């Protein structure tokens, strides 16, 4: 009996120790630990993506609940530069879609009432667009913590950084900003949930990215999000309608918009025969769909009309801070008009 106990106890102890070490170092950023955000709030620092990993869902909820949020934006990575004062939270994240937005709405409190800027992407309605996992189940988390590959990476990271076993992050100063990071903060997050690229903080240390031009190959253009798009995906439309219905039931104000496109990309979307029918159907349907629930749709798809220059789209996909500011102003104006007209009706 003694030897059986030794075997079982030692096995459990070793696995528990390895899992605890993996949890602490968390080499792939798979375990959500809100303490880094608490520390960043105390020192008013940015947080490196290395410490957020793919846990956007938990991160954005943390942002929402730690701010006096009255207005927030949801959408894909293309809304992540939007920022607007102390009551504004950016709850967008890469890998969003109508179903994640519905889930997010359900998880937020009904009151106080919110103003929601909902950035709707055309490619969301391509059924081939699949979502990355941004919220692990407990089982998957356990699997991750017990995996040998996690342990070997954790050991390797600990070797690279002597402070890692004691402190999971270090305080860095990049340009004028303080950043909580580990090694290479190429992407960082503000405490309102908006995103900052490394080259915006220090262009000498982090090279600005380029590329993204359309070559005709839909499999490679924009990560293949538009490839094989033949019809508007019904299940995603249903999810979007459910989200709008929930917002209406909660008396929230919702403004839908398409994230702005640079001129060349807009031309591709409007004229490429593989894309144009679906793209035009999406742009035609969205205003009707938002109006059906009593909400406004603002067509911000043409970046040039907003005042965004070609250079405001570094990768010809995501708009930069300047263009995003113009977008926020356009949406704010639409909201004000809306409020005015509601007042007139009453």
């Amino acid at each position, binding site marked *: *009996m*003694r*030897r*059986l106990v*030794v*075997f*079982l106890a*030692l*096995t459990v102890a*070793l*696995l528990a120790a*390895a899992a605890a070490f993996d949890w602490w170092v968390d080499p792939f950023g798979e375990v959500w630990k809100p303490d880094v955000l608490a520390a960043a709030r105390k020192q008013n620092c940015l947080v490196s993506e290395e410490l957020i990993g793919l846990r956007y869902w938990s991160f954005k909820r943390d942002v929402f609940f730690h701010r006096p949020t009255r207005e927030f934006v949801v959408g894909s990575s293309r809304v992540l530069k939007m920022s607007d004062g102390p009551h504004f939270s950016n709850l967008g994240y890469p890998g969003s879609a109508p179903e994640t937005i519905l889930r997010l709405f359900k998880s937020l409190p009904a009151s106080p009432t919110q103003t929601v800027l909902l950035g709707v992407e055309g490619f969301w309605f391509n059924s081939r667009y699949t979502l990355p996992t941004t919220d692990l189940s407990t*089982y998957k988390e*356990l*699997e*991750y913590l*017990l*995996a*040998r*590959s*996690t*342990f070997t990476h954790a050991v390797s990271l600990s070797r690279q950084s002597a402070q890692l076993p004691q402190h999971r992050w270090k305080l860095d100063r990049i340009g004028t900003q303080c950043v909580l990071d580990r090694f290479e903060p190429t992407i960082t997050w503000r405490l309102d949930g908006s995103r900052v690229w490394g080259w915006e903080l220090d262009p000498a240390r982090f090279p600005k990215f380029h590329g993204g031009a359309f070559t005709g190959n839909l499999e490679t253009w924009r990560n293949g999000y538009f490839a094989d798009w033949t019809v508007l995906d019904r299940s995603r439309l249903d999810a979007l309608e459910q989200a709008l219905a929930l917002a209406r039931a909660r008396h929230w104000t919702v403004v839908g918009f398409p994230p702005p496109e640079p001129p060349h990309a807009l031309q591709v979307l409007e004229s490429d025969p593989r894309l144009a029918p679906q793209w035009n159907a999406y742009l035609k349907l969205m205003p009707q769909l938002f109006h059906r629930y009593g909400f406004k749709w603002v067509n911000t798809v043409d970046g040039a009309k907003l005042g965004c220059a070609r250079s405001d789209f570094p990768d010809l996909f995501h708009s930069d801070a300047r263009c995003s500011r113009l977008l926020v102003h356009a949406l704010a104006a639409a909201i004000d008009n809306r409020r005015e007209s509601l007042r007139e009706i009453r």
Partner: protein
Amino acid sequence: MLFNSFPFLLAFLPLVVVAYFALPHHRLRLLLVVGASYYFYAYADWWFPALMAGSTAIGYTTGRLLERNPRKAVLVAGVVGCLGLLAYFKYAQFAGGYALDFVHVITGRKLPHLRTVLNGIVLPIGISFYTFEGISYMVDVYRGTLRAERDLLRYAFFISFFPHLIAGPIVRYGIMQPQLTVKHRFDADRVRSGLLLFTLGLAKKVLLADGIAAYVDNYLSTPGQLGFFTAWSAAIGFGFQIYFDFSAYSDMALGLARIFGIDLPWNFDRPYRSASPTEFWRRWHVTLSTWLRDYLYIPLGGNRKGEARRNLNLFLTMALGGLWHGAALNFAAWGTYHGALLAGTHEARERGLRLPRPLAVAVTFVLVVLGWVLFRMRTLGGIGSLYAGMFGLHGFGGGLPGHLLLYIVVSFAIVFGLPEEWRWPVERWHVVWVAAAAVLFAVAVSSVYTAHPFIYFRF
């Protein structure tokens, strides 16, 4: 559910073992294990248990009928019933595909709907194993060497017992029956020894077999580019991969069954030490080779009807044995190749040809490795390319595959330096060895995240 998976290791196994020994009544324990085994099987696909229940019902009913009326027609009906399920799920796509090709050539009609139906057939894992177990039971009852089981629960336990359900060993009911009539008390030494054997199997699978697989799969994905040394390394590597993979499963099955107080028959005994193909089949997948001998080779006439008939029987038995592994021509070719090796061995012996044992072991090893090419490479082009590489037709350049070579050296050392793991006296291990095994177990458990499924699950 895989033995090398977290749901099995962290939830299923601990819960079933604790519940098993917590239950006071023997029949309740049998019921628990049968229920757990059906759940274990349903984890792969929800409808698989219905198929196993059908096979169990056929075997049990046939046994009872044979007990009252031991007529050949009853046996044939039972065997055909079991084989019918196997034939449909395993061979319909294969045979039907060729039949449709034939019809297409003759009539010009493609019959796409029929082809879609055939392509939609899913092979339930483990069906080859429990079908053979059911057949052996029915034949043994018919021959009078085994009493028919009247207790359906015990028979269902025999067929479904999860340690051997998916990939054997192929158990005969005569071995299992006496063990199912007694209640097994909790025996810490026995449980520990089962866990230690399971640990050795798990470590062999995730550390050796999967480690080798990473390199072998990479090389064999482009057989046309392999030079002489790399081609041989890849082929030998696969020989060790499949051996460690399958023998690991068998060790794990034996260890798991031991925890529940059940002894299963061993399946491997360092087959690469064999000095002839005949000896190889006495050491490799022994429960299958003895099944083929007792229920196919001997009924076909065995060696009782002259040399020519014996050789034909060997060819037939091994070709069918090859097809048992998978419904594809390469498996039939692999089986026939081994049939030829066995017939050749008999012929050589009869002519008094003897080699010194070390040389005979080396020759047998090379012959077996050449056979693995047929087993592993599914297409004629792939088989041809790898053989061409092994015979130097792609040149001798390309260097040596360092990491794979290291695995091969370690594998040779294990195979020739240590006995098969089920022979290790784990029940007498000192506490220091037990502690070392716990470390090994922890490492092996942490390695299952990226583990490959067992090769023999496909069969």
